[in-house]
């Protein structure tokens, strides 16, 4: 019975008050049950904190506080626990995010139990409040700009989460703790519950900070709606009302409980109790977008939110689609100040959503983007959306769904560009070799046959021919890659086959760093109309080690890509590349761990068995472990190098821009600059766990005090995130 309640507390936090009431009634009947239950919860709380399970811990604290309302726990002992929580703010040499959590756990329980605690222990509570307030005033907030979805403060300020919660609790206190939104079943059982004997919480010492402690990231509260957005319906609670906090908390909890089952999740959301008194659809849409746009990352995979919204549209076809359309319109209107990472997610969400609704949209409403600088956020957004829509359908469909005025924003037909294809290419160097290769490919030539054809290609970079002919020869790479990719252009599978079949030739031609870069360049020239093909080819080339991650990073920052530098596909490629690198390191680390464990098991067996033959086995295993150790070190070094290269390149191009603006006397804040600096932020945010390892190197080598303050600010905001 106990286990059921314990797990319910964790798994369905939105139904908290139902379970606390049940526990209260059981406690009234059986005092020991209540005692054991509370003890078990405290144990669970300690374990969660030690396991860095802070989200669960918040729910446990809230559950415990509501048990005060159910006469299971005596109010003074709860106050004492909160006193200990807030005293964490006095700890020195600990990360701010640790202190933040304890304050958050205290404040976020008050909508449930503030009234009761204040009634019983107002002097002590006032003291705790004073301590909280002085902490909130002195804590640093350098990290906030990095986490805001919009840089603008209008129409709704994007507040740091503790500031917002503090304002909400202050208002609740002023209203004398009158809170009308939370369902409180225990009120109906007051006559039984008030007879119950209460338990005192044992004194609770917050577990100390350790090196392994990882606290939740700070957040910025996402607001996009207020009461003016739904003038005909019930009034939306204000941003500093505690009702707003409770509704949002509960809706987030529902998503957290049911995100894997979209039908259940949608059903639970639309049947939220008390929905007639609030504009529920607006809250739901706001909470979903809050999660989707959350920085650094959404709590769940992006595609879940797309499917959830589709499900909600199906459940409430008469009301939700309109709210969603209104939200989309608002997001479009505010694109100018939206964080680039969030714009990426908006693009991906909107294109996928449209593909489920026959791409029906009132594009004419967005005609204002047609007269703007094509590099500014709105036209850019429309272009990227149309490109993604095309990937989910086909080129002609896109031309059909938009008005003719939008044709300039339509994506290019994703065709292959073969430079040796037509009559005029006769004069191009290597043309004859290209034709020869084409014939060879079609007659199923082997790698060796291709090598011998390529031997005759002169090297434009060298005066005397290299005997082996395998040093970096850009022309060889050009004719080979152009011709092969052109012949394999029919589909992704054809291209992958081509890469596989002629892997040997690729590896040889791309042996040097310049070779790798040139392969990427040529591939890009062939497929520049088809960014999706570029992305899958880069992926395959990395996985088959034709190119390495550093080559891809250098290619992205090269001058050939500068025209496309702000396009979404470029950043998807870079982040995918970084992720592959990260996964590779993890994989080898795991192999090493497994080998070490195996050796340990073998040693233990040997001491049990006294078997001589395992000496030999040991040797082989130890050798393997040594090899794996080297592999791990080499992989980690490659990973660090990748990040350093990326940061270095960012610093170079940003500095170039800043210096140029200074000498020209123009404003720094061009659309390109906003995009670029936010892309730098995105690197930090999306890979923050790995990058944390490099802080010292970054500080001493790259992000030094001499750096332009615009660029240094990004680094400082990042440092502040877990400080």
């Amino acid at each position, binding site marked *: 019975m106990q286990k059921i309640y314990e797990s319910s507390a964790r798994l369905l936090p939105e139904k908290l008050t139902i379970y606390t009431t049940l526990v209260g009634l059981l406690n009234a009947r059986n005092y020991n049950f209540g005692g054991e239950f509370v003890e078990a919860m405290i144990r669970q709380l300690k374990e969660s904190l030690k396991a860095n399970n802070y989200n669960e811990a918040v729910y446990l604290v809230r559950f415990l506080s509501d048990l005060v309302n159910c006469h299971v726990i005596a109010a003074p002992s709860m106050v004492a626990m909160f006193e200990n929580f807030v005293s964490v703010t006095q700890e020195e040499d600990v990360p701010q995010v640790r202190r933040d959590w304890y304050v958050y756990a205290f404040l976020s329980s008050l909508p449930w139990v503030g009234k009761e605690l204040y009634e019983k222990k107002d002097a002590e509570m006032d003291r705790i409040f004073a301590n909280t307030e002085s902490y909130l005033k002195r804590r640093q907030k350098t990290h906030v700009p990095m986490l805001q979805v919009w840089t603008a403060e209008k129409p709704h300020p994007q507040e740091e989460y503790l500031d917002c919660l503090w304002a909400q609790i202050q208002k609740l206190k002023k209203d004398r703790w009158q809170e009308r939104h939370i369902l409180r079943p225990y009120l109906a059982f007051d006559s039984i519950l008030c007879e119950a004997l209460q338990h005192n919480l044992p004194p609770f010492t917050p577990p100390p900070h350790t090196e392994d402690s990882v606290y939740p990231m700070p957040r910025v509260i996402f607001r996009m709606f207020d009461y003016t957005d739904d003038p005909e319906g019930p009034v939306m609670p204000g941003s500093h009302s505690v009702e707003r906090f409770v509704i949002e908390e509960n809706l987030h909890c529902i998503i957290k409980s049911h995100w*894997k*089952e*979209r039908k259940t999740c949608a059903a639970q959301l639309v049947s939220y109790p008390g929905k007639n008194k609030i504009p529920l659809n607006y809250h739901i849409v706001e909470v979903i977008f809050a999660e989707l746009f959350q920085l650094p990352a959404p709590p769940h*995979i*992006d*595609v*879940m939110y*797309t*499917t959830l919204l*589709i499900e909600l549209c199906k459940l409430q076809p008469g009301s939700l689609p309109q709210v969603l359309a209104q939200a989309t319109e608002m997001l479009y209107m505010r694109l100018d100040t939206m964080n680039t990472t969030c714009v990426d997610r908006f693009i*991906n969400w909107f294109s*996928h959503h449209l*593909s*489920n609704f*026959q791409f029906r949209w009132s594009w004419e409403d967005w005609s204002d983007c047609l007269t703007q600088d094509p590099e500014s956020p709105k036209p850019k957004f429309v272009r990227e959306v149309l490109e*993604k829509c095309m*990937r*989910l*359908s*086909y080129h002609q469909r896109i031309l059909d769904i938009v008005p003719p005025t939008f044709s300039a924003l339509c994506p290019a037909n994703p065709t292959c560009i073969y430079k040796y294809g037509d009559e005029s290419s006769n004069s191009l160097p290597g043309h004859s070799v290209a034709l020869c290769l084409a014939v060879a*490919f*079609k007659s*199923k030539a082997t790698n060796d046959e291709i090598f011998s054809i390529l031997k005759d290609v002169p090297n434009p970079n060298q005066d005397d021919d290299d005997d082996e002919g395998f040093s970096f020869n850009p022309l060889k790479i050009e004719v080979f890659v152009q011709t092969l990719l052109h*012949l*394999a252009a029919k*589909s*992704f*599978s*054809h291209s*992958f*086959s*081509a890469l*596989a*079949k002629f*892997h040997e030739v690729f590896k040889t031609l791309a042996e040097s760093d310049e070779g790798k870069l040139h392969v990427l360049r040529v591939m890009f020239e062939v497929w520049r109309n088809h960014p*999706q*093909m570029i992305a*899958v080819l880069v*992926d395959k080339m*990395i*996985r*088959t*080690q034709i190119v390495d991650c550093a080559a891809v990073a250098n290619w992205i920052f090269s001058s050939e890509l500068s025209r496309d530098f702000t396009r979404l596909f470029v950043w998807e490629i870079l982040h*995918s590349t970084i*992720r*592959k690198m990260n996964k*590779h390191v993890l*994989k080898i680390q795991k*192999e090493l761990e497994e080998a070490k464990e*195996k050796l340990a098991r073998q040693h233990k067996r040997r001491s049990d068995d006294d078997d001589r033959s395992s000496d030999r086995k040991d040797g*082989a*295993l130890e050798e*393997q472990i040594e*090899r*794996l150790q080297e*592999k791990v070190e080499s*992989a980690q070094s490659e990973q660090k190098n990748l990040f350093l290269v990326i940061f270095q390149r960012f610093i170079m191009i940003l500095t170039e821009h800043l210096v140029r603006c200074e000498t020209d006397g123009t404003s720094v804040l061009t659309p390109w600059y906003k995009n670029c600096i936010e892309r730098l932020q995105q690197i930090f945010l999306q890979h923050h766990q790995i990058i944390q390892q490099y802080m010292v190197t970054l500080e001493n080598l790259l992000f030094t005090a001499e750096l332009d303050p615009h660029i240094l600010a990004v680094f400082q905001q990042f440092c502040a995130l877990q400080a």
Partner: protein
Amino acid sequence: MDRKQLPSRCPLGTVSSDLRILQGNSSLELSEYWDRQFDGDNDDQEKLLKESSTLYVGNLSFRTTEEQIYELFSRCGAIKHVFMGLDKIKKKACGFCFVEYYNRVDAENAMWFLNGTRLDDRIIHTDWDLGFREHRQYGHRPEGQVRNANAFCEDFDVGRGGSGKQAQARDRRGIH
């Protein structure tokens, strides 16, 4: 939706059925899901399905391309392979395909979030599949052997190519 109700299902699980997929021989459509040629019993199949990272995708438009499949299913994770089901005679796409991910969790995401949504205006259906036999063999090498030391190669096709039916199939569709 009961697997047994899917007439166009032609499951992977053996090399010969792989070939049939690429040929799209509709006369081999099984009325029941379970692959009769599978070398184990139903319990084994069920166990393998629980570990699989390959999905069967059905009810596609005949016009749906590999590129569209990649775009949609990439939203759940990195795709290892897409095999478009082909009609035997016309050698054209005929309404189903297989998507293999590198990681099972990505395939789970696809089952949770793409199953029952639209691609090319049709509601697609996803289901677990046994995946290619050869690939599963690579997953269970004898202990102590470090696989090909070169980095990401666990996923590389060349090892699977060679004389395998897949490589032959690839060549058939590849460069002519």
